[in-house]
């Protein structure tokens, strides 16, 4: 069975939800502990949401130096698929696996809403089950979600099609160019602020199951590989 690792840092909140989403998609969820460098032979890793280390200093700043991240960073550079959701996205930017940085929301408030997104890049390891331009609803909840990068970086991301998701209707946090998520050049590392793991069952919230595609995408890719 395809093994997808889900990292728990102290202060991670959505690890159980992410494990559930992995299982709903049909893969095996493997818990990974921040103090272990060993990734237990997983085929891909998800860095879930939460407030790792309380988000003290900056969101993701302390987790980025954890032992597990040493291995994740190394293997991600080697092509292992990595998905960072919310706090996980922040860890990925702090680790420089993805460019830019995440700042306090423009409203200065925590925001929790069911957010409409457009999938801009359906070619990444985590988005193949969507089609480019597809509009989906995914819950979003953060206070440090304002994606920021310098103009050159933003232009490069646009030019290379690396803006993976864009906010529609409402830009909930003041992200530049309505960016909700991005990918690295190779398409194996993807980070986004909204929470697809909260949209895998019809029962929960009203967003439906639009988030399941993240987990089925990676599963298909790994099975095919």
């Amino acid at each position: 069975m395809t093994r997808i690792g889900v990292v728990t840092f102290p202060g991670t909140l959505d690890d159980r939800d992410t494990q559930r989403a992995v299982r709903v998609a049909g893969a095996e969820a493997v818990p990974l502990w921040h103090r272990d460098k060993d990734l237990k032979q997983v085929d891909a890793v998800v860095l879930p949401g939460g407030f790792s280390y309380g988000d003290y200093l900056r969101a993701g700043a302390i987790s980025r130096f954890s032992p597990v991240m040493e291995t994740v960073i190394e293997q991600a550079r080697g092509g292992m698929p990595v998905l960072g959701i919310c706090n996980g996205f922040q860890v990925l930017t702090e680790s420089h696996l993805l460019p830019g940085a995440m700042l306090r929301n423009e409203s200065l408030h925590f925001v929790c809403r069911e957010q409409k997104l457009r999938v801009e890049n359906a070619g990444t390891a985590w988005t193949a089950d969507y089609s480019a331009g597809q509009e989906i609803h995914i819950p979003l909840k953060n206070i440090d979600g304002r994606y920021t990068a310098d103009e050159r970086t933003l232009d490069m991301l646009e030019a290379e099609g690396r803006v993976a998701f864009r906010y529609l209707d409402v830009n909930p946090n003041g992200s530049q160019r309505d960016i909700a998520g991005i990918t690295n050049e190779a398409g194996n590392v993807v980070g986004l602020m909204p929470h697809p793991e909260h949209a895998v069952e019809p029962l929960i919230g009203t967003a439906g199951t639009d988030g399941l595609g993240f987990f089925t995408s990676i599963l298909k890719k790994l099975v095919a590989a």
Partner: protein
Amino acid sequence: MTLDTVAHAAKTPDTEQPWAELGLKKDEYERVREILGRRPTGAELAMYSVMWSEHCSYKSSKVHLRQFGEKAPETDALLVGIGENAGVVDVGQGYAVTFKVESHNHPSYVEPYQGAATGIGGIVRDIIAMGARPVAVVDPLRFGAADHPDTKRVLPGVVSGIGGYGNCLGLPNIGGEVVFDACYQGNPLVNAGCIGVMKHEDIHLAKASGAGNKVILYGARTGGDGIGGASILASETFDDAKPSKRPAVQVGDPFQEKLLIECTLEAYAEKLVVGIQDFGAAGLSCATSELASNGSGGMTVTLDDVPLRDSTLSPEEILMSESQERMCAVVEPEKVARFLEICEKWDVIATVVGEVTDGDRLEIFWRGEKIVDVDPRTVAHEGPVYERPLARPSWQDALQADDANKLARPADADELRAQVLRLVSSPNQASKAWITDQYDRFVQGNTVLAQPEDSGMVRIDEETNLGVALATDGNGRFAKLDPYAGAQLALAEAYRNVATSGAKPLAVSDCLNFGSPEDPAVMWQFSEAVRGLADGCLQLGTPVTGGNVSLYNQTGDVAIHPTPVVAVLGVIDDVTRRTPVAFADEGHLIYLLGDTEEELGGSAWSQVVHDHLGGLPPKVDLERERLLAEILISASRDGMVDAAHDLSDGGLIQALTESCLQGGKGARVVVPDGADPFVLLFSESAGRAIVAVPRSEELRFTDMCGARGLPATRIGVIDGEEIDVQGQFSIPLSELKDAHEATIPNLIA
């Protein structure tokens, strides 16, 4: 300064002690001396003063609260009742649920962010101390007038404190209340509730048993936070003019608390814990004396071993410190190593600070000397009990005679329409999304219903879809008009809310917020409210499992409205059968269940249109509530209704507005023959709800109501993009939406 040891105290009986500054009354101090047979040491005085404060000892309320036990209904559901950190209820399938509401009113006025944040922290620790995994929080809040400048300070701070702490813990916020009223100016009410889930066999109690077992303090280091807060803040009227009385505010660290949750649950899972106690008000004094007095033996504690944040703290201060995010566990000696290992795994500091003894004394040592030697029961359970004088206020009759049904009503349809818009945009009736969107409602992936639904609902078993629902309600205006009825109306509303979403109401917790118990009028309100709630719970068959009392909510002579906040917990076998509020399907029929009388006393309409409070609150008919609940639960289980919304403040028009906006669909409403449109729309008669019935289910549904004797009136159909009250007015949804949603951001943001 010489250390005030037990031996020293015995030799110096005439030493002056600051008992008054610590909040003790003369006779209370004398009683301490009598119990000990000598004067207390400084450390003992600290312990007694904080444990005998109103906040910790319930000395003014105890004689009344007994009714909750005496009048408790027969039920098999109650696994742990009043007296523990929180009550525990059987919800079936081997699961037990614990829930409780507590207040953090005064601290939240002083420092809104930290006060509210630590309120969440405290209630969550109560829940984990029962052995449960916390699964959701709720936050019933009350503020001063919405347009008062200080509300702009207090509300955003409180909301971001609750969000900041709860979001960081990973607990979905699934409900609460936001009420504005000038009576809460200077005395905002910040109540916080939490639900926890466990298996029956995992229930833990706060007691220290088994001589030789170790007492482990774990969590944050102890600092100088809130020293004396428990006694001084909660037992004296807060008076802004005397900032010197402000104790150091406690600062919360939700990250630390999250680690505390995880490591505690891991220790439970490995069966490492004999007894456990959270640290709330009164810190170590409370935790050690409660643990020891609930257990079979005594306890020794070495205070030098307590990890400190500030090395200059005196032993008295260590005992009184209210530093947050600390817990105390009693662990068998051979399991201590493993317990400490789990704490280390989660980066939680843990220290053995004491031991259970086979004596019956609580002895505390400092620098090798004994500074406390008490019978812990006298500290924790045998505090003073007052039978305070009570008197029906002199103004009560005049207030009730000032009949709201006589207020000027809208002269014509245009005025009716205008008043509808005023009502739905008034601060108390307006959308609270600006607030609740700052709370994470998705985390844990089990939230089936959250605000603005009638009750919050979470799934507790992924296989069977078993779930629990919680609603909190309280209407201070009703309670002011009649505290007995007001408490029952709060109960009825919370009960109805739970049933409306499809869950069966099981049990009750409460947070009783009142003015000064030293005022006989307030004490009368309190006693009436408790009597009303206890009688109501007996009649509805829902036991009170625990709760909290907050007194001294007043500025000078002016008390807040009596505000009993009631939380009702319900269970639902299959959360997929839940009933949401939203009118989502065109063509479905709208039925009004229950009877509408001309009842405007204390209503939102009387407040919004006439700034009036007088008359009598709506009548209470708990048998009708029970019948309504049964119908709503059956209808949900058998798929006869697709949406339902209970009627409360603002009456029918408020409920229609919310259901329509939530579903994005309009409604055509026909005023039944003989009904007065104004009364139909604005009356706040209890025991009512609206439901959306698919045409295919209409017969089955009306048959059921008819057979059981519940009035069900077809009042319209879901249709179009406006609320159209035939022959009266129509308001486009977009206009309603703007009116409903703009108010709070305009006032507060």
